Every structure is written in C-alpha cells, then in structure tokens.
C-alpha cells in the first residue's frame, strides 16, 4: 500500500509554507550585498522552488529546476564571481526609491489583474479545462506514452522544444564567443594545484568522486530513457551528464577533464544535437508528413518490419505509434547531446578563464 493519509489537505499547507520560505529567501537576497551569500541563497531558492513544484504536481519542471537551478546556475554564478571579484556596492537610498516604486507598480498591476483570475486549483478554469485537458485525453491515443508532459513537450509542441534546444545552443555560442573554450586556462599556470596547508589532502573527495561519476553518468541515461514513463527527459539527462563532467573537473582538475572531453568535441556535439533534432523533422517531411510529424518518421513498409517484441503485440484500440515512439526518443537524444555539450562548454568557458592582471589605470573594485 502507499502511505496516503486522507482527510488533510497537506497540499495547501505545504504550498503556503514553501511560498513563504521563498519570499523570505528573496528578501534576504535583496538585503545582502555579499555576492557569495546571494549565490548560496539562490541555490536555496532553487531547492525550495523545486519542492514547491513537486507539490504543484509539476514533477518534470521540478526535476529541471533541481538540475539547473541548484546545479548549473550556482556553478556558473560562482565562476562569474570568481572572474569579477566584486562585492556589490551598497545601494544608496536615492537609487532604491525608483526601483521600489517601479517594482511596486508592476506588482500592483499584477495583483489587480489576479483578482479576476479563477480560483487557485479550479479544475474548471479555462486554462485547465480547454487545451490542457485535451492533451490529457488525447495523449494515450496519439502517442501511447504515460508521461503527458513528455508527449506535449516533444510531439505536440515539439517545435517549441526545437526552439529551446536552439536557445541552449545559442548560449553555448555566446559564451564561447565571449570567453572562449578555456584555452587560456590550458596555457596558464594558475591551473596548477594551488599551494595548500597540511590539510589539503582530499583523499576522501577523490575516492567519492571516482565512485560517483560513473553512477551519475549511468543515472543520466536512466533519466534519458525513462522520460516517457516518469519525470525526466533529454534536457534533465543532459544536465546530469554535464554535472558528471563538471564534478570530474572540480575534483581532478580542468586540464584532465579537457583532455578527456575536448572543448572542440563538446562544441561539435552541441551542433550535432540540434542537427539531429532538425534532421528528424526534415526526415518526416521527406517521408510525406509535416515538419516533426513523427507519424511519418518511418515509411509504412519499414514500420511493418519492426518486430513485435519491442513494445508487445499490436492492439487495435491502441496502435503502436512506432513513429511517435522513435521520434520522441530521437529528438530527446538530440536535446541530450546539445544540452550536455552546452553545459560543459559553458563550464569550460567560465572555469577556464583565469583572472587577468588588472589594467593599468583602471579602478579596481574591492576584493570579495
């Protein structure tokens, strides 16, 4: 049996508590001028909002927020602070006034508008009753996979996800244009092990990391291929895979990691992922469907050759949807490639750029 307890709306209570926590954290971020505290608090913000997302039944989003907010964003922010070394200047009272008025104004408009919003949780609201419900009803027949979010993400609104993948690819290009691929770190001496005290023996960490990295990679593939059935999918898996690489770099040094996963390789894989995704779409066109119409991914005569043992024998009520299954799998693979490679590229860009000597004449901001 599952441990469900009737008669108590734990949902609402949790929802409220977590939201209050979020507000407190944001207030603390606004109050601190220490960048590092702000980053740590951002990590907490992500954690809490991910729990909240689970409470809101948004399991896939929670998954993403977990890997992105708590993982990648924090590390990228740390890298940026390392390279900018700025404690934020204290905000003077004059500069606080106008932003506060603006923020309050926007908030007032928003709250004014929410008065007309349907009640929270109303199943009959337009948002929940119209297209959202239609997806729930149609997915079983159209795609035959349990995770409706994955179905909508990669098939019904697959074009959005193509755009999302491209955005990520664009970020890889942007960071690479700005910061390079860590070439500077490769040539630089600061990458040598830093001088440390007698306690700088990280045996425990190295052993733990050695154990964990393969497990993380394995887990990424589980998330990837389990995405049809449970929360997860290409994006989450890609970030997890990248986290494995990042962990390697953190523990064993960027140089070793770059020797194993070459920056050029990462860039190529990022482009290949988008190509794979777009290529699947074009294949559908070639085989007589619309763009990304996975029903036409395979020509009929090839589909007839696919043996039954993969998904069980055909059932007239629920046809196989080979095209949908394979199409979703393939594009999720493309997303995995692009996302993993992009995250690694971004990490290389930030971690691999050592601090330059300050320019003569330029004012230096205070050390962190």
């Amino acid at each position, binding site marked *: 049996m*599952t*441990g*469900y*307890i009737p008669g*108590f709306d*734990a*949902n609402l209570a*949790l929802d409220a508590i977590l939201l209050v926590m979020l507000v407190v*954290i944001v207030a*603390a971020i606004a109050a*601190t001028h220490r960048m*590092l*505290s702000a980053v*740590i*608090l951002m*990590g*907490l913000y992500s*954690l*809490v909002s*991910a*729990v909240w997302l*689970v409470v809101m039944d948004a*399991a896939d989003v*929670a998954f993403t927020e*977990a890997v992105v907010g*708590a*993982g990648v964003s*924090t*590390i990228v922010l740390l890298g940026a602070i*390392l390279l900018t070394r700025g404690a934020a200047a204290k905000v003077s009272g004059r500069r606080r006034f106008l932003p506060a008025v603006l923020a309050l104004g926007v908030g007032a408009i928003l709250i004014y508008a929410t008065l007309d919003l349907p009640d929270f949780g109303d199943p009959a609201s337009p948002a929940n009753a119209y297209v959202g419900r239609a997806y729930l009803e149609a997915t079983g027949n159209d795609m035959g996979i349990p995770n409706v979010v994955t179905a909508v993400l990669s098939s019904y609104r697959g074009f959005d996800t193509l755009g999302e993948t491209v955005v990520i690819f664009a970020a890889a290009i942007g960071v690479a244009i700005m910061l390079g691929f860590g070439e500077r*770190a490769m040539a630089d001496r*600061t*990458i040598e*092990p*830093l*001088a*440390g005290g*007698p306690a*700088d023996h*990280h*045996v425990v*960490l190295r052993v733990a*990391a050695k154990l964990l990295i393969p497990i993380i990679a394995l*887990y990424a593939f589980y*998330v990837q291929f*389990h995405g049809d059935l*449970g*929360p*997860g999918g290409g994006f989450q898996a890609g970030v997890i895979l990248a986290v494995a690489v990042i*962990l390697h*770099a*953190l*523990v*064993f*040094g*960027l140089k070793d990691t770059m020797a194993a996963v070459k920056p050029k390789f990462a860039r190529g894989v990022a482009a290949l992922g988008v190509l794979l995704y777009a290529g699947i779409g074009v294949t559908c066109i070639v085989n007589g469907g619309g763009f990304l119409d996975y029903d036409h991914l395979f020509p009929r005569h090839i589909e007839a050759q696919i043996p039954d043992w993969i998904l069980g024998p055909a059932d007239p009520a629920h046809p196989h949807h080979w095209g949908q299954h394979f199409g979703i799998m393939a594009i999720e693979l493309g997303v995995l490639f692009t996302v993993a490679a992009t995250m690694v590229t971004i*990490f290389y860009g*930030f*971690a*691999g750029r050592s601090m330059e000597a300050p320019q003569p004449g330029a004012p230096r901001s205070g050390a962190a």
Partner: protein
Amino acid sequence: MLLIGAAAGLLVAMSLMIARAIMGPSHYDRILAANSFGTKTVLLLAIIGFVFGRPAFLDIALVYALINFVTTIALMKFFRYRSLAAPLTTHTPKEGGNG
C-alpha cells in the same frame, strides 16, 4: 499522520537552516547550511512522494542528492582555492600534482 508530522519537522529544520544561511557568519557556515538544507530537501521530497501517493517521483530526490554534492564541492573550492579549474590533490604541490 506520522508522515505529515515528519514532513513538518523537516520543514522546521529547513527554516532553521535558512536562518543559518542568512546569518552566516562565515561563508563556511553558509555552505554548511546549504548542504544540510539540500539533504533535508531530499528527504522531504521522498516523504512528499508518499504523502501525495506518487512515490515514483523519488527520481527527483535522487538527482538532488547528487547535485547537492557537486554544488557543495564547487562552493568549497571557490572559498578555499579561488578557482574552479585547479585539481584537488592528495599531495602537497612540491611532490608534484596530478594535473
């Protein structure tokens, strides 16, 4: 009911951790709070799965346990070494690093 009590206990503990993370005083305290907060989040997620009748969502708890570790290492390296790129050695640099 007990599970809800456990969730409530965890929530209180998490709030205390937020207080520690805001108060500091040193950055190591903040990392500690963040890390401990992460562990508690993992547990809370596991319990929520049971309370809401969908224990299959343990996947999220699982990924948290992993990510939390990596973030803590990154934070620690940041404060201790001011670099994300340098390797963590088992030797002192004189004996030759692994880099």
